[in-house]
């Protein structure tokens, strides 16, 4: 196969970007955002969509400028800010681990609900899917681009169908069914709680070298994919709430879309939604685990992580990274609560996107208002999210602060120690 033929076409890039975002996001966050914003849940998706759009612009702008694959870590390296780059890399890896755990959590709940399973089956499925995908990755199967595109297409169709059907049944009373109506500003806080639903597009920046005529097509393709997902989330937020009712989506937030499909299409709807959610979350776990393990290996290779993570197996797979990250995500999926995982991941990606927007603002000399808009909206959203976590989950907030402090202060110490050990071993 020629090099050109093996490259990702614009349609493939579009599908992978849209699927990367939708692949686990909307299945888990809808009930969380409806609880906070009720009839303004759609506004939450619209507001945070502005951050996603400006961040997508910044990612593509920086990728095109440096003309090579890489994400926030690589961009910071180009700006010779290795200290911040190293800390961000660790935070980003933590964010990906949290994201994988949210997808595994969703997989366990959606599949278990279809079989009337209890807590043990749910936890077993969440742990099982991560274990299975660790195994597949170790065997060298890696990123299944064509399979992922097929899954993404079906997934988008199912969600769009559900949302459109909900809109055809329009009933405004359902948007506040069983809850107190909320003021419009609650849309901002709702958006803060679920920002991770938009993180998936940035995995494409790692694939920059594989994109056909990236300079020409990457910007319009990625921007249109993000815009499509923003609109899809708005349609699904409105349509699903009309079908299921606000209180029901909140009470069954772990399986909100299966409950909605049950209300609209009966048991057939549950089966279709379970298949869509199961495949979408599994594909999202696979691609995130694959990309994160490779990022970890790359970072370890540049001395920003212990060299232990740089190890590969016979299939040239970063085996230790895959096992360590996957296992951590599996444990979090089994022991964590949905909103805590979603909020922690959202914080990490808000910080990451903020840094990328800031780099783009520094680097560009025109259209600087785009990254500036992303930074402004991101700061407001981040503050709202910090307050929400501090008030609602003070213990988790304390833990999060501790992790950030450990990353910023403990990382240089740990790296110095491992480097000294390596030197002693060499001597």
């Amino acid at each position, binding site marked *: 196969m020629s090099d050109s033929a093996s490259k990702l076409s614009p349609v493939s890039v579009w599908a992978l970007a849209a699927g990367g975002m939708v692949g686990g996001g909307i299945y888990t966050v809808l009930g969380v955002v409806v609880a*906070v914003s009720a009839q303004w849940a759609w506004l939450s998706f619209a507001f945070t969509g502005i951050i996603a759009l400006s961040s997508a612009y910044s990612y593509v702008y920086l990728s095109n400028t440096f003309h090579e694959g890489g994400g926030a870590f690589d961009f910071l390296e180009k700006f010779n800010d290795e200290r911040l780059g190293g800390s961000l890399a660790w935070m980003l890896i933590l964010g990906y681990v949290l994201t994988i755990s949210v997808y595994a959590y969703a997989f366990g709940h959606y599949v278990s609900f279809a079989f009337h399973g209890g807590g043990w089956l749910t936890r077993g499925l969440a742990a099982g899917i991560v274990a299975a995908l660790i195994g597949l990755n170790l065997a060298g199967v890696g990123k299944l681009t064509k399979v992922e595109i097929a899954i993404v297409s079906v997934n988008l169709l199912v969600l769009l169908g559900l949302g459109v059907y909900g809109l055809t049944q329009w009933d405004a009373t359902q948007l506040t069914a069983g809850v107190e109506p909320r003021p419009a500003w609650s849309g901002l806080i709702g958006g803060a709680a679920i920002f991770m639903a938009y993180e998936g597009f940035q995995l494409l920046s790692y694939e920059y070298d594989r994109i056909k005529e990236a300079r020409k097509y990457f910007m319009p393709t990625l921007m249109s994919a993000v815009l499509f997902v923003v609109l899809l989330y708005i349609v699904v937020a409105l349509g699903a709430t009309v079908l299921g009712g606000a209180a029901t989506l909140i009470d069954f937030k772990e399986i909100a879309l299966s409950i909605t499909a049950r209300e609209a299409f009966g048991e057939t709807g549950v089966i279709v939604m379970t298949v869509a959610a199961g495949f979408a979350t599994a594909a999202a776990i696979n691609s995130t685990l694959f990309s994160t393990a490779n990022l970890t290996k790359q970072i370890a290779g540049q001395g920003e992580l212990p060299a232990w993570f740089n190890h590969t197996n016979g299939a040239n797979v970063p085996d230790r990274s895959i096992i360590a990250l996957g296992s951590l995500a599996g444990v979090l999926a089994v022991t964590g609560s949905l909103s805590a995982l979603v909020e922690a991941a959202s914080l990490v990606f808000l910080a990451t996107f903020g840094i990328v927007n800031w780099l783009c603002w520094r680097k560009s000399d025109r259209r600087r208002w785009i990254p500036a808009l992303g930074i402004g909206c991101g700061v407001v959203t981040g503050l709202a999210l910090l307050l929400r976590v501090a008030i*609602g989950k003070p213990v988790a907030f304390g833990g999060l602060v501790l992790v950030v402090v450990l990353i910023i202060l403990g990382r240089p110490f740990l790296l110095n120690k491992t480097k000294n050990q390596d030197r002693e071993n060499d001597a």
Partner: protein
Amino acid sequence: MTPDRGCCALLISVLLFAGCGKPNTPNAPAELRVGQFLFASASARVSLVGEDGDSSVLSLSYAELTDYRAFSPGSYTVDVHAGGQHLLHKTIGLGTGGRYSLLLAGIPQEGQEVNQATFGTRLHRIFEGAAARTDNDFLPTLLLQNDYFVPVPGEGNLRVTQLVPGLIPVDVELDREGDQQASLKGIAYAHTSDRDQFTAGTYAASLHLAGSPQDRLKFQLELDTSTFTNVYILPAAGDSRRLRVVTGRTSQ
């Protein structure tokens, strides 16, 4: 597949999927029942006024849980009066075909403000919305519960709500034919357990303070597959040290 064909396939699939739904049932009424669990209030008056001017007034004695009543779907303003005081003024939404329980809990204070709430409770409501659950210093509170449930063959749905001001979290143990079957752990004041499913049948239920082996209350519970059973734990009238339960059942 070319992009044009892909778009056509996408559009057709969406329309097909969207066309397969259950027919809409416009204007199916919402159903609401009200539980008066305001401790030390022998009676309370609850009025609901809809956007279209429809109103309904209920006078309820302590520990009374009404049957479901039909309401037009929409937003309602709820006002609660007890002991000659206006305690609560809230707006709630009732959805088409939904079934809900409106629960009044807490202890009215002499000379209190309408909707009096602690600073912490206000913050929780701002940042958590409908998911906010606080003890609010045991001031009068209105809880709107959604009684939707998913029937499971051979199993009954159960949810327990703890409404005893000042009581530490409780555990509820369920025994069926002498074998301990399950338990619902750590239900704090103004909180509910998850909707849990248990094998249909008759259970001997016992209530403990969390971590304590001593029974505080024993009661019998009947779970069947087509019914959602809600248990509300309350202080007995006039004696906050004694507990009682009120049970509400929602049929499919």
